[in-house]
């Protein structure tokens, strides 16, 4: 009897150790990536790296100012497209849980989430780049916006579903029209969840390369014109890392550090915002 208890205690210990080891195994790759990229790229990162454009082959120095500006502009325009559409769609899905249109939209959103990013890039190429007659940052933004949509929509929907109906009834009972109930009560009460969805979607697309390959295309010079080709961090990393020059490889490592830090900061601030702005129900 006591032997079998001993045996079970032993098993229990082993299982506990295994879970701890596996939990560490999960975070190990992240730290390995962080360590390796920072080690390879941190020497290049300084102020002039952030404010200068890349130098031609053979010249020392140069930076990634064009890619930084490009990434920010492309993401801002993509957000301007994806956030209003995504939130509205999320509101619709949470308000009309049982309607047939909502069922099909939800299904489409889920499928859209699974569409490979390169396919979205090709679609943007045929819809925008070809008709408009040239590569442009705008077409890249549209491609990224399409990728952001499912994340914004689903996070908005899931957040708003959790709000009690009594809140909506309170607003309706005060004689508020539907659009005000949504804009002044429902969305503000779910703002932390909606914002975290938005930030996660930005973090998700910030590193996307494939949809930008045949849309924003890349540009070795500083450009703020969204109707023209524009450089971005992932594109710069892709182009420079596949080049035969050591200088350019270093530049790509430096850019990787910046991109990584940007995405990490977005993720961490998402956590903080969710905590800080959470509306206590």
């Amino acid at each position, binding site marked *: 009897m006591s032997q079998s208890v001993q045996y079970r205690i032993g098993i229990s210990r082993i299982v506990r150790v295994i879970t701890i080891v596996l939990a560490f195994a999960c975070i190990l790759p992240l730290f390995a990536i962080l360590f390796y990229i920072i080690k390879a790229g941190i020497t290049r990162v300084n102020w002039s790296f952030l404010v200068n454009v890349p130098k031609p082959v053979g010249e020392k120095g140069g930076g990634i100012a064009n890619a930084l500006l490009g990434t920010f502009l492309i993401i801002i325009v993509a957000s301007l497209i994806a956030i209003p559409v995504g939130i509205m769609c999320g509101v619709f899905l949470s308000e009309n849980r049982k309607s047939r249109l909502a069922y099909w939209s939800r299904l489409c959103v889920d499928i859209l989430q699974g569409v490979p990013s390169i396919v979205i890039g090709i679609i943007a190429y045929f819809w925008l780049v070809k008709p408009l007659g040239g590569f442009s940052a705008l077409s890249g933004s549209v491609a990224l916006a399409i990728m952001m949509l499912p994340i914004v929509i689903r996070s908005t929907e899931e957040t708003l579903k959790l709000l009690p109906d009594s809140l909506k009834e309170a607003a309706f009972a005060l004689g508020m029209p539907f659009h*005000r109930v949504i804009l002044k009560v429902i969305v503000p009460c779910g703002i932390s969840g909606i914002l975290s969805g938005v930030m996660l979607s930005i973090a998700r697309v910030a590193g996307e390369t494939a949809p930008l390959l045949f849309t924003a295309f890349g540009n070795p010079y500083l450009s703020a014109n969204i109707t023209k080709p524009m450089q971005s961090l992932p594109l710069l990393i892709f182009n420079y890392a596949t080049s035969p020059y050591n200088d350019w490889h270093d530049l790509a490592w430096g850019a990787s550090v910046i991109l990584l830090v940007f995405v990490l900061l977005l993720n961490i601030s998402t956590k903080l915002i969710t905590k800080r702005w959470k509306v206590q129900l």
Partner: protein
Amino acid sequence: MESTIVKSVDYNAYFGDNHVVKNVNISIPRNHVIAVMGPSGCGKTTFLRGINRMHELIPNATANGQILLNNEDVMQMHPIFVRLKIGMVFQRPNPFPNLSIYDNVIAGYKLNGISLARMDRDRIVEESLSKVALWKEVKDSLTKKGTFLSGGQQQKLCIARAVAMQPEVLLFDEPTSALDPISTSSVEELFHDLKKNYTLIIVTHNMQQAARVSDQTAFFYLGELVEFDDTKKMFTNPKDKRTQNYITGRFS
């Protein structure tokens, strides 16, 4: 002769094919407290929500007949106007969690985009909170969130929010069923004060409460209005057998 403020004529309400309120005819006198009681599922809440057209917010819910407010049919009016004239307080306190106590009171103006001068706003907030006997308790914490208050205080805040819109009728849907006994009695005391300015219609499944607070009582059973009479008379000498059975506790 008392004047009638709300009158329903052959009012029917449905959820899909389910006929929940059957042919209700009732005349509710001004500045009285009316209790609506009956066993669960008898349609009392549905009837109440029909008065300010909240019933039809539920998918598949329909209604027909007339609900007259000062001889105007609310079924023909836009629901938004109806709800501005007929305030409502719910079973669970539901202050807006994103707004301060102050903003919760004027939520009807603020969220509807009606702009008020600072002075009017302050006056409405103080008056409304005084009417619900909450002003003294919260006057130093007006900027705190509405959900910071206790359950009973939150419910009073919700009443203040409805009162602030200066409606003619206030509907209460089991307003004390989520409150503790002390909060319940303090909310009940309010009804007495509020009836000077408003007509109160209170749904309750608590017979003692109906007896304590109301001037008239309506008894609903299986979707029908069985009896509507002075509360005292109804509790001592009901006309209908079903009312008598309910009051004496033969079914609940």
